[in-house]
């Protein structure tokens, strides 16, 4: 039988060893690598801002106006935009300059003259034969920079109700506008891709 006086030291040694092992295990297990695949988490804010802008643009200009009960008076900015001949410039003006560049998200990380967010807006609609077709509503001016390909883009969408066939867009051939688009009330989807440069 060995001397029993060393038992406490042995137990303490084993306990210390266990503590060190568990510490190393926790430290190694808690390191999380921020991979490029996780960057979409930071895009959530941009997506929300874009979605909010489209929502504001799609709010009826005169809500519950008893003086103008007709549906025509309850049109929204977005609906009016797809029904005007100058839709590209007006969409860019409204979406980029009026709303996006005034929002806090952009103001914080960009400087005047070096705006870092670009957009590309398309409109999707259903043709007479039931197939889908789209045309470009607006693209951001090229003076804002070029696409680097590094930053991921986010996509925000908004349904738009239109009373009638929209005004012929500049990016759509007259034949498609005449033959493809429906001449009746319909729903279209405005789709905006936003990305940082």
């Amino acid at each position, binding site marked *: 039988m060995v001397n*029993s*006086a060393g*038992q*406490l030291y042995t137990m*303490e040694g084993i*306990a210390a060893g266990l*503590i060190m092992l*568990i*510490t190393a295990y*926790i*430290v190694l*297990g*808690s390191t*999380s690598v921020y991979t490029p695949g*996780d960057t*979409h*988490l930071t895009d*959530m804010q941009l*997506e*929300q801002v874009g*979605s909010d802008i489209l*929502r504001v643009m*799609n709010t009826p200009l005169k809500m519950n106006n008893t003086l103008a009960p*007709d*549906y025509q008076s309850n049109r929204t900015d977005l609906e009016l935009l797809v029904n005007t001949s100058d839709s590209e410039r007006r969409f860019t003006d409204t979406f980029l300059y009026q709303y996006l560049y005034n929002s806090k998200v952009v103001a914080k990380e960009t400087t005047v003259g070096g705006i870092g967010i670009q957009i590309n807006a398309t409109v*999707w*609609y*259903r043709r007479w034969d*039931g197939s*889908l077709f789209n045309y470009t509503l607006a693209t951001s001016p090229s003076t804002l920079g070029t696409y680097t390909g590094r930053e991921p883009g986010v996509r*925000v*969408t*908004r*349904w*738009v*109700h239109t*009373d009638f066939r929209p005004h012929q867009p500049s990016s759509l051939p007259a034949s498609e506008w005449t033959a493809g688009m429906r001449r*009746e*009330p*319909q*729903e*279209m*989807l405005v*789709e905006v891709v936003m990305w940082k440069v």
Partner: protein
Amino acid sequence: MEGLNREGQWIVMMGFLVSLGIFFLAVVISQSTLVGQTTAEGVLEFPKNDIQDMRHEILVVEKFERDRNPPTTAMENISKDFATIALYRKSAEVWYNYSVYDCHNGKRSVNIHYNNGVTVYNETTQVYYVPC
């Protein structure tokens, strides 16, 4: 054990207790990044804006059909727009049905369905209007 001074036992025991406490805190911290990421992804994945937008737009169409004189079948025509475009561009099934508009009733029900494979949303809503 008997040979040792018993006074040191408190020090050893408190050492163990403190180290155990630190372990619990370490486990909580090591889990926090994972929990934060999962939560953020859950928020991202939930199509809140899509559902609100679709719902709003369907009710706009309902009002449009009701206000039109002479009456139209806008809701029936436009349901194909919703179904087709949502399926191709939003990867979501969207469809709705509704009771026939009768201006004497004063109300009308609309059933809205949304399914993008992860989130399923069903709604039955009553639209009230002044009866004729």
